[in-house]
Structure formats: structure tokens, C-alpha cells
């Protein structure tokens, strides 16, 4: 895998070790369907600090997908507060939040979620386009990132010309495009075979070592235990327990 030293830890005051990147304070997400209230997330409080590798665990229906959306500020809570890098997301407009999210968080999805009309390189470039980066910069960086995930020879391939593992690596490269502090991975190995899954996990681990904060949502306890330093166990929309593995 060679050179994974692209992301040098930033030694600025704001990135001193222990800085809270994401904070949820008694966050609830309730859905109202007629007279019924579905309490998908029902009062979660958690903190994710810089350089942590955190897993959010839980069986299906435990609310972990909703929790992930809230942690990734894709969704807004019905109650409670979410802070992204110290800023209350409730104070942002939808578009401002999208911009902030694009800079601070890189997403990796279970089903890769690449844009099918675009090549691998264009997929990696697009988050930079949304941040108004120049074409030259975006292209150079996309190439660098694809080299990093060992897809230097697949840059101009369309997503349907790539294997699942390759697509997930493109997604990893894309998540790194705007040099975010946090990588949020939702079941990143869910659609991959064991061997490819391990490769993807290796990438995430290395990124963590290079200073990235990784949040992984999974239903696989072994995967969570093997890689993360802290696991939030979710059940019925609440945190059942927190375990530290390392």
C-alpha cells in the first residue's frame, strides 16, 4: 500500500488532540405517522474526538442508520443539539450545512453510491467542484487520491467497469477529496467479500493512523471490535452501552 502519508496531522491550535469534532446532546429523531410516533433515535448523547476510530453498532431497527444520518449532519434532530466542529448545525441553512458537511465529513456508503455517469476520476473530483475548487486542482488531487487507493490505472473507467472493491476504493478516494477531518463509513464492507472487505478496512485503519477520525456504522460486532477504539451499542434508538476496545 506504500505511501499513506498524504494526510499529515495538522498541528494547529484547533486540532490539538482531544478536540471534539462531533457532539450529540440528547438527540431525538421521532417520526410522526398519524397517531403513531416512531422513535428512531430517542435521546442519544455522544462525543467523537479527533483521531478516534469509533463504531456505532446495533442490530437492524436499532436506529443506527438514523443515528448515522444525524452524526453526519445529513438529517436534523427533532430534539436535542448537534455540534459539528463546535458549531451548532441548527444555526445553518440547508445549503450552508451542505457546504460545511462537504468540507468536514467524507462519506463512504455500503452500496458505494458513486455517480454512474461519471468516471472514477470525475467521481472523486465532484466534491471539490461543490467546494468551488479549480479544475486543475481537483484533477490533480483526484489523481493523487486514486493513486493512493491503488486505482491509478482505473481513473477513466466508469463505475460499471469497476468491481465492487474498486468502487468502494473510489468512494474512499472521494471521501478524502476535501481533506475532511471525519470519515463516516456506513457498513463499508457490507457489499464486499471478506478479502476485499479486509482491504477496505486496511485503508480506513491507515487513514486513522494518518490522523483522520473514522466513524463506522456496522452490524458486525467482530469488525467493530477489531478496528475501533470505542463502540457505541445502540438498541431501540438509545445507547445501550459504550465499550472501549483499546
Amino acid at each position, binding site marked *: 500500500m506504500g505511501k499513506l502519508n498524504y494526510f499529515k496531522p495538522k498541528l494547529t491550535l484547533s486540532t490539538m488532540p482531544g478536540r471534539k469534532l462531533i457532539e450529540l446532546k440528547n438527540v431525538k429523531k421521532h417520526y410522526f405517522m398519524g397517531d403513531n410516533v416512531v422513535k428512531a433515535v430517542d435521546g442519544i448523547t455522544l462525543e467523537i474526538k479527533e483521531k478516534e476510530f469509533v463504531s456505532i453498532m446495533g442490530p437492524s431497527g436499532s436506529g443506527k442508520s438514523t443515528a448515522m444520518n444525524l452524526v453526519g449532519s445529513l*438529517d436534523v434532530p427533532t430534539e436535542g443539539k448537534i455540534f459539528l466542529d463546535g458549531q451548532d448545525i441548527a444555526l445553518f441553512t440547508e*445549503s450552508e450545512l451542505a*457546504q460545511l*458537511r*462537504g468540507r468536514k465529513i467524507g462519506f463512504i456508503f455500503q452500496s458505494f453510491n458513486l*455517480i454512474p455517469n*461519471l468516471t472514477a476520476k*470525475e467521481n472523486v473530483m465532484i466534491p471539490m*467542484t*461543490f467546494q468551488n475548487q479549480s479544475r486543475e486542482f481537483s484533477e490533480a488531487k483526484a489523481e493523487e487520491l486514486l493513486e493512493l487507493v491503488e486505482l491509478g490505472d482505473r481513473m477513466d473507467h466508469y463505475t460499471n467497469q469497476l468491481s465492487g472493491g474498486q468502487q468502494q476504493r473510489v468512494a474512499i478516494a472521494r471521501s478524502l477529496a476535501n481533506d475532511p477531518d471525519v470519515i463516516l463509513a456506513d457498513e463499508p464492507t457490507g457489499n464486499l467479500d471478506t478479502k476485499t472487505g479486509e482491504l477496505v478496512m486496511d485503508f480506513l485503519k491507515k487513514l486513522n493512523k494518518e490522523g483522520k477520525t473514522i466513524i463506522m456504522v456496522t452490524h458486525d460486532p467482530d469488525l467493530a471490535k477489531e478496528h475501533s477504539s470505542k463502540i457505541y451499542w445502540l438498541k431501540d434508538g438509545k445507547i445501550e452501552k459504550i465499550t472501549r476496545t483499546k
Partner: protein
Amino acid sequence: MKPRLILLASKNIKNRGIRSWLTMIGIFIGIAALVSLITMGQGLQTAITGQFSTIDPDKLIITNVDTGFGPPGSTAVEKLDDDDKELLESINGVDVVVQRLVRVVSFEFNDKTEFSFVANIPQEKDAIDVVYDALNIELEEGRLLDQNDRRKVILGNDYTSDDFGKEIRLGKTVTIQGEDFEVIGFLKKAGTFILNGAIIMPDKDLRDILNIDDEYDILIVQVKDAKEVDDVKSTIERKFRKDRDLDLGEEDFSVQTPQQGIQTINTVLLSIQFVIIGIALISLLVGGIGITNTMYTSVLERRKEIGIMKSIGAKNSDIITIFLAESALLGLVGGIVGIIIGLGLAYGAAAGISGALGGLEFVITPNTSLLIFAGAFSVLVGTLSGVFPAIQASKLNPVEALRS
């Protein structure tokens, strides 16, 4: 505005392949109709104006017209007669009155028969000069008719070809309405198709072969002073009303300056163009609705893609830009193809019409501002058609969109 989002939009359109083309059909038709019909209309206008350009400003054209009262067919237009001619001659400021007959006759040569326009050459010397001058007649060979000629004709330039299987030469005899005539001249190729296909014969001969006695199709008045043409016109109108016992507004005759003749035709052409533009606009409206429909479908199909883009930092305005760019591009490409088809149709039709009518100079000149307008209008239709789908796309909740 992020130019690369437009690139993304163009990729999306390309990716939809045949569906994009089908979406654009309405735009093709609308723009093609708009461009071809307006271009042809302008060509036709130029051609028709050209037909009239030989008429000088010191002349007035008097015809009888249908008053339009009563059931159709009951108001057959009466012909002008000698009384009218004499009345005109009595008016102050009138120099010469020329009687014109334009009819269709059978023309036979080498056992082949065709039907042609025939026009008379008046009997009086000064009237003959007016006609030759007004029609701008030039000979290719032979000589012009004069007041002493009988049973002789001049033929338009079309007759110099060997359409009859044998060339018609000077001095040959042709049969017109069953009567023999000697060909004494051929006209040079003229800008007017009527003249190129016409037979010109002495007034008396034409009356003989068609049994016409005291009637004229048109009377042309040459005024003494071109500056007085409007005064003479009102005098003629007043005297005709008095002679026929008609009130103002009830006229069953028309006195027109050549410019008015052109204006009348232009008015007709303009109203035809309005109808055509109306039809083209309806087609564009339908085309626009087609784009809206495709874009709405596209929003539904690409919910997930929209969710992905929002999750990786796309603002609402970015999503709007992508979708608006797509619909605008559909309009642009539709417009460009429509313009090409439209010009092709106009050139094709012009060539066909010119071929069918002979010497009519039906020249198509692409009007740059029309083409730019058509292209811009098409982009506008495309963009407007995409507004609602684009807003809908931008308002999608990223979480729900990602779930689809």
C-alpha cells in the same frame, strides 16, 4: 455558477441517449417550423416585391373588386369597360390610360399543347410604350410588336427551350386557341416567372381569339407628374364613386399605387406568417412540456444521485444548476438541430418552388438575427421547462433521497 456542473449535465443528457432525442422532437419541430416558414416567408416577400419592382411610381392600377356582400358566388367581379376607360381619360393629370388583359390560353406547337398566360399589347403607340416601359421588356432576339402588327406574338424566355420537342424559332408559326400566330421575338430572361412564361400579343388579336369585346382586367393610368399621383388617385376614386353612385366605403373598385399593391401582399404574407408562428409556438410549448416531463421523470429516477450529491456537499443551488443546465441544453441542442432542419426545409422548398415556377427568383437568405433568436428562444423554453423539476430536485431531503 460552476462550469463543471454544466459538463455533468451534458453527460447526463448524453447518457439518456434516445430519450434525450425523443424529448427534443417537440423543440425540433417548433424551431424548424419557425425558421423554415419565416425564412421562406421572407424569401417569398422578396420574390413578390421583385415582381412589382418593374412598376414605376408614376402609375396607378385600377381594378374592380368583390364587395363581399351577399352569398358567395353572387358577387362575381364585373369587368372594367370602355366607360371606365373614358372616365379615366377625362381626369385632369392623367397622361395615358393603358388597358390590360391577362388571360390563360392554350398554346400548341409541334403537336404539343400547354396553357400559358397571355397579355395584350395595346393598340395606341403611347400606351404600348407605357407597357414596354412598365414591364421592363428586353428582347433576346427578334423585334417588339407595334401598333400595326396582327397575328404576331412575342414569347417569354421559357419558350426558347425545346420543351415542345422542337425548338421554336423566329418566324415559326404557333397555334394559340386554335389560331395561327407568327413568332417575331423572344424576351430576355426576366426576374418574373409570369413574364418568362407569357405570350404577348396585340390587343385586337387577343380579343378576337377569346371573343372579348368591351372589357378590361386592369387599367393602368400613367400620371403626368409623379408627384401628383396621390391627388390623381383621390380624384379617380371620387369620380368612380359618383359614376357608379356609391358612397364612401362601398367601393367595388380599387385604385392602387404599386407600393400599395406590394403592401397588400405583404399584409397577407404577414398574416400568414403570424398564423405559422402561432403554430410553431404551440409546437414549442408542447416541446417545452415534453422537456418538463422528462426532467420530472429524471428527478424521480435520480433521487439517489441527488442524495449522494447533497451528502458530499452539493448546495441546493448546485442541484438547481445541474437540472436547469440539462433542460437548457436540451433546448439548445433541440434548437440547433431545429435550425438546421428548418434551413434545410427552406432551401429545399425554395428550390422546388423556383423549379416549378420557372424564373421566380425565390432566394433564401438565412436571417442571422432570426437564427440567433430561434436558438435563444429554444434555450429559454428549455430552461423555463426545467425550472419546476429543478426546484423539486433541490428540495429533496438527502436522507430520503439516499434511501431510494
